[in-house]
C-alpha cells in the first residue's frame, strides 16, 4: 500500500488552498542558498526538481508554494497509517514515508478475497484519513511494491506473472548499494529482466554471498517475506531509545565481563554497525573499521558517538537508530533487545487466563510434564 506524497497530502488537508498546486518542501539542510527537498508531481511536471534553488524554482514555476518541512507531523501520520493497517491484517511492514507491505493472505474470512479487501482498504483510508492510497497486489513483495508505485488505484499482479511484470523495470529502482549498481551497469545489465536469468553462482561473485539469493528472488518476483506483526516494533528497529538497566547491581560487572569475554575471542569475526533512518526513510549506515574492533566494546562507545555526530548531518530528522554488535558465527544481535519484563508483559493476558482457570498452579516448571 502506498500513499503517494504523504507529506503533501497532509499539507493539503491542513490548508485546502494548496490543493492542485505545485508544492515543495524546503530543504532542512542550510546552505548558501535555500534549496528544495521534496517536490510534488505537479511541481515536477513544471520542471522543478529536488535540490533546485528556491528562488530559481519560484521564478520558474509561478504558482509554486514552498513549505517548511514538518517531520514530526509526518511521523505521526506514518504512525496513524500503521494503526490503520492493523485493522486489516496483523502482519505488515512499514517502508518509506507512506509505504507499507501488508499480508492479506489468511484474512479472507474477515474481509473477503484479497482484491476486495484491498479495494475496501483504499476506500476506508480515504474516508477515515482523507488520504489517496494506491495498492499493488501480489504474492511477491517486490512486485507488489512496484505495482503500487505504477498504478493510480489498485493493480494486481497475477500469480506466476511476477517475473514478466518486473522485467521491464530498471535495476536502478531497486535500492541497491551504489557499488553493486555500478558493477551491474558495467556488465551491461540495466533492467530487472536482464538480471533475472543470471545464475546464483555468478551473482555471488558480484556481491556478498548471503545477499545474492535475496536479490535474485526480488528481481524474479519470488520473494515471499514473512512479514512481522504490525504491533511489534518494526523490522530492524528492534527497540526504542532506552536500554533497560540491569536490575541487580551485580549484573553490571557480569554483563561487562561477558561482553568482554565474547569480544576478546579472537577466532570469531566481529562487527559493529550503526544504522539510522531519517524521517523520510533515508537509510544511513556506519561500520567500524576492523582495526578499531581490537578495542574492548565499551571503549568503542565514543567512537560510535563521534561517527554518528560526524556523519549524521540531518540529526534533526533522525527517527530511528540501531546499533548492532555481531560476534561469533551466529546471528546479528541488536543491542537494544527487548527486555525480559517486556516479554513477561506480553504474556500477561495468557497468565491471567491461566490463573483464573488453574488458581493453584497457573504455571508449572517445564520439567514437570504432568499427566
Amino acid at each position, binding site marked *: 500500500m502506498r500513499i503517494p506524497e504523504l507529506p503533501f497530502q497532509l499539507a493539503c488537508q491542513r490548508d485546502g488552498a494548496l490543493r492542485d498546486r505545485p508544492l515543495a518542501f524546503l530543504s532542512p539542510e542550510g546552505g548558501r542558498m535555500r534549496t528544495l527537498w521534496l517536490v510534488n508531481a505537479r511541481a515536477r511536471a513544471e520542471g522543478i526538481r529536488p535540490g533546485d534553488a528556491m528562488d530559481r524554482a519560484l521564478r520558474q514555476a509561478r504558482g509554486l508554494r514552498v513549505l517548511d518541512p514538518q517531520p514530526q507531523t509526518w511521523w505521526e501520520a506514518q504512525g496513524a497509517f500503521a494503526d490503520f493497517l492493523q485493522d486489516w491484517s496483523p502482519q505488515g511492514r512499514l517502508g518509506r514515508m507512506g509505504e507499507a507491505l501488508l499480508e492479506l493472505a489468511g484474512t479472507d474470512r474477515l474481509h473477503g478475497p484479497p482484491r476486495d479487501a484491498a479495494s475496501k482498504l483504499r476506500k476506508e483510508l480515504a474516508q477515515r484519513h482523507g488520504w489517496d492510497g494506491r495498492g499493488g497486489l501480489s504474492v511477491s513483495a517486490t512486485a507488489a511494491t512496484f505495482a503500487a508505485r505504477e498504478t493510480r488505484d489498485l493493480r494486481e499482479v497475477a500469480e506466476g506473472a511476477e517475473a514478466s511484470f518486473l522485467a521491464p523495470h530498471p535495476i536502478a529502482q531497486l535500492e541497491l548499494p551504489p557499488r553493486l549498481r555500478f558493477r551491474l551497469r558495467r556488465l551491461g545489465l540495466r533492467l530487472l529482466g536482464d538480471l533475472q536469468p543470471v545464475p546464483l553462482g555468478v551473482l555471488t561473485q*558480484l556481491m556478498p554471498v548471503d545477499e545474492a539469493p535475496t536479490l535474485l528472488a526480488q528481481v524474479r518476483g519470488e520473494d515471499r517475506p514473512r512479514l512481522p506483526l504490525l504491533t511489534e516494533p518494526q523490522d530492524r528497529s528492534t527497540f526504542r531509545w532506552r536500554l533497560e538497566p540491569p536490575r541487580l547491581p551485580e549484573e553490571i560487572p557480569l554483563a561487562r565481563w561477558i561482553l568482554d569475554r565474547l569480544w576478546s575471542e579472537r577466532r570469531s569475526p566481529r562487527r559493529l554497525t550503526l544504522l539510522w533512518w531519517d524521517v523520510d526513510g533515508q537509510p544511513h549506515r556506519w561500520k567500524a573499521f576492523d582495526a578499531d574492533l581490537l578495542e574492548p566494546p565499551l571503549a568503542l562507545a565514543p567512537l560510535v558517538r563521534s561517527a554518528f555526530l560526524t556523519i549524521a548531518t540531518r540529526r534533526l530528522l533522525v527517527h530511528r537508530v540501531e546499533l548492532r554488535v555481531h560476534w561469533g558465527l551466529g546471528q546479528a544481535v541488536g543491542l537494544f533487545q527487548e527486555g525480559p519484563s517486556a516479554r513477561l508483559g506480553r504474556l500477561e493476558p495468557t497468565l491471567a487466563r491461566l490463573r483464573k482457570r488453574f488458581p493453584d498452579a497457573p504455571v508449572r516448571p517445564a520439567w514437570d510434564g504432568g499427566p
Partner: protein
Amino acid sequence: MSLAFGISDFSMGEGIYRAKDLIRLARRLGYDRLVLWDEGLRGYPKARAELDWARELERMGMAHPSFDGEGVTASAFHLHPGCRFAWRGHRYGALPQSNAGYAALNKLLTDQAHGREGEPPAECILLANDLAGLDALLREGVFASLLAHPRGAREAQMAARGALPVVAPQVLRFRTKAGLELHRLKRAIATQSTLPRTGALWDARDGAVPREVWEARFPACDAAVDRATRDLEARIAAWEIPWGAWTCAGPVGLEGADLDAVLRERTVEALPRRMAHRIPEAEARLERELELIRFKGFAGYFLLVQDLVQTLKHVNLPSSICGRGSGAASLVSYLLELSNVDPVDTNLLFERFLTRERVDPPDMDIDFAWDERDQVIQAAFQRYGRDRTAMVSNHVFFKRRAALRAVGLAYGRPESELKAVSNRSRGWDGGLGELPEGDPWRPLLAQVEAIRGHFHQMSVHPGGLVITGGPLWEHAAFQPAPAKEGVSVTQWDKDGVEGYGLVKIDLLGNRSLAVIRDAKKALNGRVPAHFGTLSRQDPDTQALLARGDSIGVFYVESPAMRQLQGRVKKGDFESLVIHSSLIRPAAWRWVDRYVKRARGEEAFLPSDPIFKELLSESFGVLVYQEDVLKVCVALAGWTHHRADQLRKLLGKADCAEKLPLFEREFREGAAARGVTPEVVEEAWDMIRTFQGYSFCKPHSASYAQVSFQSAWLKAHHPAEFFASVISNMGGFYPAVAYLGDARRHRLTVRGPDANASAWAFTAEGDQALRVGLMQVQGALEQEVKAVIEEREKGGPYQDLDTLLVRVPLSVTTVEALASAGAFDAFAPDGDRARLLWARLGGVPPGVRPRPTDPFDRADLELELMGLTLEIHPAALARVRKGGGPARVADVASKDRDLRFWALVVAAKVVSDKNGRGMQFVTLEDETGLCEAVAFSEAFGRRRKPYLVGEVTEVRGRSVRQDGLPVLELKQ
C-alpha cells in the same frame, strides 16, 4: 612577592589568555615577574617574543598595548619558563633554576611524550599541588614545596604545621565571569564535547585578583609562607634561559676537526670546477663569505647540510636537489653543490642569508624529489640519532573559520549550519555581519572572536629539521611526530626554535625534480650535457615560456603566471626570475606598472637616482625581499640585519601592528641622511605595500632554473615530459587537463592497455602518450603490477582468457581494468561489458548484456580514470544535455556572447577590492583552453563556486584584457 604564575592558551582546554594578554593582566594586577605555568613549555617562545617586542618599542619611546599606563616597564618585567606535569598520579609543577635543571625538565617532558614515566627533574624547584603529591615526592627523597591556594587553606596549614615548605604565588587563570565561561568553552572544544555537558576545571574562587588583595587574602598570612615564596622568587631570578645562542651539530666524522679549514678546503677545491668564468670575482666573494662564516661559527652548518645531502649517496640518492631560499645566495652553498644557481653570475646578495649582526640563525632550504625526501629524513634520523634529531613542529592558531567550527561544535550546532556559516565567513551571503535577527549564531560570534588567535593544535612543519651536538633535550623538549614512524618533532614551532638559536634545515619535497628525473631516465641519454645551462639559453624553450605555453612547467604553470608571461612576452632567464617573484602576493599589486614598463609603454623615470641604481632591473618595482633590504640600507642607513627584521615582519600576520615602529625609524633614518620627504614617501609607500608572501631573489632564481629544465623537456620531448608530469601526480591541474595540453602539442593519447601500458604513464615514440595502469582506480595495485610483471616475463597476452590463466585476477580488478579499457585490444568492437563477463565464466544463457557504446566508454573512463580518451567530457555533456554551437576557441574572437559546455581545470576564489568574492576559472573543451572570470555580481548569482573537475554550462562575453582573450562570466 611580585611573582605570579600564568596559564596561557597553550594549556589546551584550560587557558584563556594569549601571551600578550597574560603579560598585560599580570602587570595590571601589580606583578613584575611572570612564570608561565602551562602544561609543557610550548608557549614560552611566543610570550618571550611578545616581551622582547614590548622592550623594543620601549627603547624607541613607543608604548606596547600590554605596557600602557602606569606600572612596571617592559624592561623591568621578567618572564620565566615553568610548567606543570603529572607524575605517578599526582600533579606537580617545575621551575628550572639552572641549565641542568632546564635540561632535566625537557627530558622529563620528552620522556612522558614518548610514553615513559620519566624522573622528577633535578635542579628544578618542584611544587606539588596537594599534600598527597608532596608526600609521594618526599618519600622518593625528592625535595618539593606545596603550592598553596585559599581553597586548600587547611592543607596549607597542615603542611606548615608539619614544617613542610609552602609557597603561595597567585596563579592567573581568568579574571571575570566571562573568562570562566570562555574556559569552559575551551574545555568543551578540547574534549570534543558540547558546552552543556562540560564542567569547568575551576570555579569563581580561582579568579585572578590584584596583588595586594591576594596577599591579604592568603589564609595563612604566614611569615614562613611569605619567606618561602620570596625565596622561590629569588632562586628563579638567579637563572636565565640560554636564549639566542646558535646551536647546531657538526657533521658526523669531523668531530674535533677544524671545520673552517675543512670548509675552505672543500670550496677552494670546487671553485674551478663549478665556476666556468669570473673566477677572480668569485675568489674575492668566497673569501668574504668564508670570513663571515668563520666569524659566525657557521662552517659546521654548511658541512652538516652537505653531509645530509650525501648520506644516501651509496644508493644513488638523492637523484637531484634544488637548494633554494636565501641559502642559495651563498657561493659556498653553490660550491658545495647545495644549490644550482651561480650567485656571482646571477648577482645574488649574500647579506640576505648571513650578516655579522644577524641574531636569529639563518637556515637552508633543500628540495628533494618528492618520493625521495622521506628516505633522506629517515637517513638523517638514523645517522644522527633520535636523541639529537627532530623535525620542527608547526603551531596552528585559531583563525576565523576554525574558530567558527570549534565554537559551533561546542554548542552542538549541526554540520549543515557549520558549513553555511563557514561560507558566510568567507564573505558569501553578505558575510557574518548580515546574519538575520534571532539567528542562533549571533551570540556565538563573540565567542568566536574571543578564541581567535588562540593556540589550536600542533602539526609538523613541512620540512624543518634540527640536529644538535648533544641530546636535543638539553635545549628543547620533543615528542613523537603524529603519523610518522621513527620521527620526532620539537614542541616549539619554527619561531621558537629560531628564537632559542637552534639552526634549522628545511628538507622539502618537490614533484618537479621527480618529473625531470623520470623524463631524463625515459630519454635515456638524449638529454645534453650541461642541461641546466643549455636549457636557459635554448631559443625554443625561451619561446615556449614567452608565449605562456607552460602548463606542466614547474612553478610557472598557474593561469596568472601564464597570463603574465603572455603579456610581457619575454622568456629569458632573468625575466622569469623576476616574474616568478612578481606573481607572489606582496609584489602583485605593482604588476601592471611592471608590465607597461617592461613592454616600453611607460617610461621608468625614477624620482631619485637611488631608485635607478637599486631597482632598474625591475623597472622601479619592488620585486624581491632584497629590494626592501637595499632600499632601507641605502635610504635610511639601516644595517642589513635591521632591514632583514623589517623584511621578516612584512610577511607576518601581525605586520600592521608592528609596522609603525619601523616606519618611524625609516623616516628618521632617511631624514638624517638628507633624503627628500617625497622620495621617503615614495619609498615607504612601496615598502608598506610589499606585505604578504614574497620571494627572495636566490629562491626565485633557483626555481627558475628548475622551470627552465622542465620547459626544455616540454619544448623538445613533450611525450616524455607529459608522461612524467602526470605520473608524478603533481602540478596545478588535474590529469585530464595535462592530456588536453598534450593533445594541443600534437600528441596522441592512447588508453590503458594490458599489453602496452606500464604502471606509470609512458611515451610511445615522440608522438604518443600511453595512459599508465596507475590511473585506473579500483584495480588492486598488487594484481595490476603482477599483470605487468608476467607480461615482461612471458610476453604479451594473446587474449583475455590467457591473461586470466597466467595471472589470477579478482573480479574487482578485472572490472576496473576492463571498464577503463585496458582489455580493449581483446575486443575490437569495444564492448567492455562482454570482456567483464569473461572473468565470470562467460555470458550465461539467456542474459543479453547491453554492448558498450562510445558514450558509455567515456562515462566509464571518467568514473575510473578521471579522464576520457575518445570524447571530451564537455562534448559528452553537450551531446546529452544540448548546447549551442559556441566552443572555448570562440573566446578568442572579441565581444561575443557565448554559451557552451566546458570542463573546469583550474579555479581560484579571491576577494575584489570591496571585499566581495569573485572567481578566476580556466575552462577547457576539445577546441582549447580559455581563461574566464566571474566578477562579484556574477559570482554572487551562483549557487556554489566553480569546482575543478566539474563539467558546466557557462555563459559569458568574450573580451580582451590587456590584449589577452578572457571570458567574462555572466553566472
